[in-house]
C-alpha cells in the first residue's frame, strides 16, 4: 500500500475528479470546529455513478489504504443509496479525513460489485446490507445472513421504507397491560 504523505482534501478530490471526470457527480467538503482551539474535523461527501464504483475504490486503495468502518444505506423511494464511509490519514494527529462515497442503485435491480477482494474487512457490512436492504452484492464470498434469524421471511427487508412484510412480525410489548 503506497504511503502518500500530503493527502489534503483538495488533493483527494482533484485526483478523483481528473481520473473519473463526469462520473463523480458532486463532492463537497464540510468542516466542523470543536473544542476551545476550534480545530476542524474534515468530512468529504462524494456522489459517484454506479458504473465506475469498483475502480473508484481501487483508485482509493492505491492512493492510500483506507479504513472502512461501515457502509450505511437508505431507501430514497425510487432508488437505494449506499454510503461507504472511509477514513484516510488515520495515523496522523488531527489530519484524519472522513471520506463518504455514496452510490445510488435503482430499486428495480439493486446490484453492486463486492469490495471484499480489495478490503476483506468489508464482508460483514456487505452481508448486512444484503439482508436489510435487499442489495444484491455480486461476488460476495459468503452471503449468509448476519443478524436476522433464519426463520425470518426471505424477501422482507426491514430498512426499506415501503416494507409491508413486517406488520405480522411487529409486536408491541406494552399490549399486555391489563
Amino acid at each position, binding site marked *: *500500500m503506497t504511503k502518500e504523505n500530503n493527502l489534503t482534501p483538495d488533493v483527494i478530490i482533484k485526483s478523483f475528479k481528473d481520473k473519473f471526470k463526469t462520473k463523480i457527480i458532486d463532492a463537497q467538503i464540510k468542516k466542523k470546529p*470543536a473544542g*476551545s482551539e476550534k480545530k476542524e474535523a474534515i468530512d468529504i461527501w462524494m456522489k459517484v455513478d454506479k458504473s465506475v464504483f469498483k475502480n473508484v475504490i481501487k483508485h482509493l486503495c492505491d492512493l492510500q489504504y483506507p479504513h472502512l468502518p461501515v457502509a450505511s444505506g437508505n431507501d430514497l423511494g425510487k432508488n437505494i443509496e449506499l454510503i461507504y464511509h472511509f477514513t484516510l490519514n488515520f*495515523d496522523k494527529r488531527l489530519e484524519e479525513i472522513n471520506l*463518504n462515497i455514496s452510490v445510488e442503485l435503482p430499486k428495480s435491480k439493486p446490484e453492486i460489485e463486492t469490495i471484499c477482494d480489495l478490503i476483506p474487512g468489508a464482508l460483514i*457490512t456487505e452481508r448486512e446490507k444484503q439482508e436489510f436492504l435487499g442489495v444484491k452484492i455480486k461476488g460476495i464470498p459468503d452471503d449468509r445472513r448476519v*443478524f436476522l434469524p433464519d426463520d425470518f421471511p426471505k424477501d422482507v427487508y426491514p430498512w426499506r421504507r415501503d416494507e409491508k412484510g*413486517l406488520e405480522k412480525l411487529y409486536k408491541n410489548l406494552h399490549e399486555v397491560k391489563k
Partner: protein
Amino acid sequence: MSQTTKTTYHIPIGPIHPALKEPVYFEFEIDGERIVDVDVKLGHVHRAVEWASRKRNPIQIMYLAERICGICSYCHPAAFTLAVEKAADIQVPERAEYLRVIQAEVERITSHALWAGVAAHEIGFDTVLFLTWEMREKLMDLTEFLCGNRVTKGILTIGGIRRDITSDMVPKVTGVLDYLKDNFERLRKIFLDDKTIKMRAQGAGILTNDNALKLCAVGPTTRASGVKKDVRVGQSYFAYGDLNIDYVTPDTLTGEVNGDVYDRIIQRLLEIKQSIDLIEQCLDKMPKGDITYEPKIAKVLNQLKKAEGEGVGRHEAPRGEVIHYVKLDGNEAPFTWKVRAPTYNNILPWIPMLKGEQIADIPIVAASTDPCMSCTNRVGIVKDGNKYELTKEELHRLSVEKTRRLMR
C-alpha cells in the same frame, strides 16, 4: 492397513452463557485440540434498534442509543449527538466539550477495569477479578456521583451535557483518580510481571499488523497490533483537539509489538494511564461558560424538526471506534440512523486469531478482544456418535488446568 482418515470435529458453542457475556454462536472445526476453522453467527441480540428509531424524535433515540451496549453506554449517544450536531449544524459550548471528554474517559477506565477482571477470571485468577472489580466499584460510585445512575449515565443531550461538574465536586473526582494511580502499580505488577499470565498470554491469539489493517480491526485490538488508529487522536471532536494526546501502542512500554493477548493486556493498562492523565488535563483546562447551547428541550426538538442534512459521528469507545450515520429530512424522526458498534469490525479478526489455538485458549483469546458479545459456555463435542457436553465449569477447568500445567 487401517488408513485413518483425518476428520475434523465440529463444535457448536453458545449462545446461552452463564456468566455476563452476551449470546453469540461460535462453530469451531477442530482437529484434535487445534482449531482449524471458526464460524461466528451473530444476531441473538438484534433488537431492531434502527428500525424502532423511525417513530421517535432525536431525544428519545438518545436513550435508545444508550441501551445498545450496557458496558460502554456513553459511546453510542456520544456518536449520535456528534452526527446530529453535524447534520443540524449545532455549535456546542466549550465547557460542555470538556465535560464530555471527562465522562468519556471515566467510562473508558471503568470498561477497561471490567475487562481486566473478566480476562483474569478466564485464565482462572478469581481473586484478581474481585480486586479489579473493587477498583471498578470506586469508579461506579464516581459515575453515580456525576451522572445519577451507576451504568446508564443519561448525561448527554443534543447540543451539550445535562450535568455540570462544579468546583465542589472536583475533589471527589481527583480523590478517585489518586486512588487509581496508586492502585495502577499493583494492577500492572499483577498483570504484567506474573509468570503464568505471561505463559498463557504471550504468543496466543496473534493478530498480525497486516491482518489488522486488512480486516479493518478497531480499538485496542488493532492498536495492540501496532496499527496507529485512534479517533481521539486522528480527528478533533469534543475537546480532544486541545489536549496533548498521542497514539498508545504496546511498544511504548515493552519496545516491541507482536499483537498477541499479552500486548492487548499492556495496551489496555497503558490506556487506563492515558485516560487518567486526560481527565486531569481537562479538569484544569476547563473554561467557564454554560453547559448546553439551548436549555429548553422543547426548543431543541422544534429546531431539530426543521433541520435537514446528514452527518457522521465517530467516537473512540473503550472497545474501538463507534460510528453513527444520521440523515435528517425535516420531519420529527430522522430519516435514517445507522449504528455500527466496534465489535462488528472485531469479529473477522477472531478467525486468524483463533486458528491454530487449542480449545482451552478459546475463552482468553475471545475475551482478549473485549468483545461486546463473546461467549463460551457449553462445548458440545460430537465424538463417534455420542454427544457429550463440556459445561462452562469443565471448559473453565480446562483453561485453569492448562494454567496449572504451565505453572509447574
